[in-house]
């Protein structure tokens, strides 16, 4: 069974149609990177998967469950989907440990002891064991994002969504977050990643999806997308982002 199936997904904000018929299937264990110009609908696409945005038309299936069905228990589906945001969105009033345990306890009903144990293991996984007692405001951006990943992992998700997880970071902190994501990919986690990190997309992903103007303009293995894009607009986009020193005046 496919991890995610989007079928003819459309999404409008008022008169602005942002997604204009997206068909996309992601199999378990795949790492799919979504690239594309700013405003092309990448975040909206990702947010339609866990219904932070409700598609205007089309269907979204996650692990075989139709989340666009009004009778769907969306909270139950979201438990199985980890989401990592550009702005980290750690709970500011809670310690790192409590950030990792609160949903385990309140949503999954785990005992305090087992939730703390899971949190401990996931903090070790992202290399932040010593920060369990710290508060988010005391951490660097890179550390906050790693905690956010550990928080999502603590729910034992079947798949993970990343929305530009390194875009809000100082350049020297990007690497530590990408390293954690690469580790996850190596362990076989199903991942849908919106990113501007082309090196990551090229080296880690199993497939690259180029989104432009609310449609999938092109998709394929990274070697094809980066090496021999079929579409002119893919080539033009890649030329723009891979030559950051070139500035149009």
């Amino acid at each position, binding site marked *: 069974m496919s991890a995610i199936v989007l079928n003819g997904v459309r999404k409008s904000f008022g008169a602005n149609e942002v997604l204009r018929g997206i068909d996309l299937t992601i199999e378990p264990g795949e790492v799919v990177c979504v690239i594309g110009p700013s405003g092309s609908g990448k975040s909206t696409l990702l947010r339609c998967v866990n219904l*932070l945005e409700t598609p205007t038309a089309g269907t979204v299936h996650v692990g075989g469950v139709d989340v666009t069905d009004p009778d769907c228990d969306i*909270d139950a589906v*979201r438990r199985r989907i980890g989401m990592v945001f550009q702005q980290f*969105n750690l709970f500011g009033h809670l310690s790192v440990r409590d950030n990792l345990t609160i949903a385990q306890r309140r*949503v999954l009903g785990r005992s305090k002891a087992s939730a703390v144990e899971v949190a401990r293991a996931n903090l070790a996984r992202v290399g932040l064991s010593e920060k369990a007692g710290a508060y988010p405001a005391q951490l660097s951006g890179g550390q906050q994002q790693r905690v956010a990943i550990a928080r*999502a992992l603590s729910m034992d998700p079947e798949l993970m969504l990343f929305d530009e997880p390194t875009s809000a970071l100082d350049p020297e902190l990007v690497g530590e977050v990408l390293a954690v994501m690469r580790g996850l990919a190596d362990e076989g986690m199903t991942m849908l990643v919106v990113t501007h990190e082309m090196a990551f997309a090229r080296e880690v992903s199993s497939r690259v999806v180029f989104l432009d103007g609310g449609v999938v303009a092109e998709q394929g293995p990274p070697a094809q997308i980066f090496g021999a894009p079929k579409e002119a607009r893919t080539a033009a986009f890649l030329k723009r982002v891979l030559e950051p020193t070139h500035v149009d005046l």
Partner: protein
Amino acid sequence: MKLKRRQRQRLGRVAGYVAFAAIILVAAFAADWGQLHDAFFRWDIATSMFPDAVTVALRNTVIYTLLAFVFGLVLGLILALMRRSSVAPYRWFARAYIELFRGLPALLVLFMVGYGIPIAFPNREIPGGVYGSVTIGLGVTAAAYMAETIRAGIQAVPKGQWEAARSLGMSHTRAMVSIVLPQAFRIVIPPLTNEIILLTKDTSLAYVLGVTAGTIELTKFAGDALNTKVNPTPLVVAGLLYLAITLPLSQLVRWFERRAERAA
């Protein structure tokens, strides 16, 4: 002679200080200090008010304040949540309530609660006697203000906090209780502390509900003493006792605000 802009500004400022000091001095010299002292600062009268001024009057003032605050806070929270409800009639009710009670004088509301409830529910008594009536009478007005404060606090919590909570599978209610409200309350601690200051002063209205020797609060206590001693010194004593509560509270508000500024 031409003055530079800086010099002109400094001259203007000095002139301002001088005028201000002159007005204060003239007022101080014009006042009859002997009369004032005899009227407002009679040591024997002041001391005769103690210990009851503290053990009964101040104590009741604090009790009325805290009871009305807790009542208003709970009702205000409910109203704030109704105001944000997806159920339209809840929203309408909360809005109407807030507009109504923010638009009425606290004294009038206190009267209406004190005399209206016994008429509306003839076979029941407000639990707690005068304490209960004052709690409700002041609390229903305070709730209207606190509802707006809490609502603003909820709205000030970034949307990303909701999204992170919901993405983890939390229901709307769970996200509200565990994630949003705790952060909203941090934001509204300073304005809620201000509300305690306002309530402290509003307890002076409790006399309209017929307080007794046991339930008397500071203002009524001072008013009674004023009548028996035929001297306004008790008013000064009461004022000082109010300030003993309200000044530390406003210091606290300032401290909260400074801390919040530093955190931001």
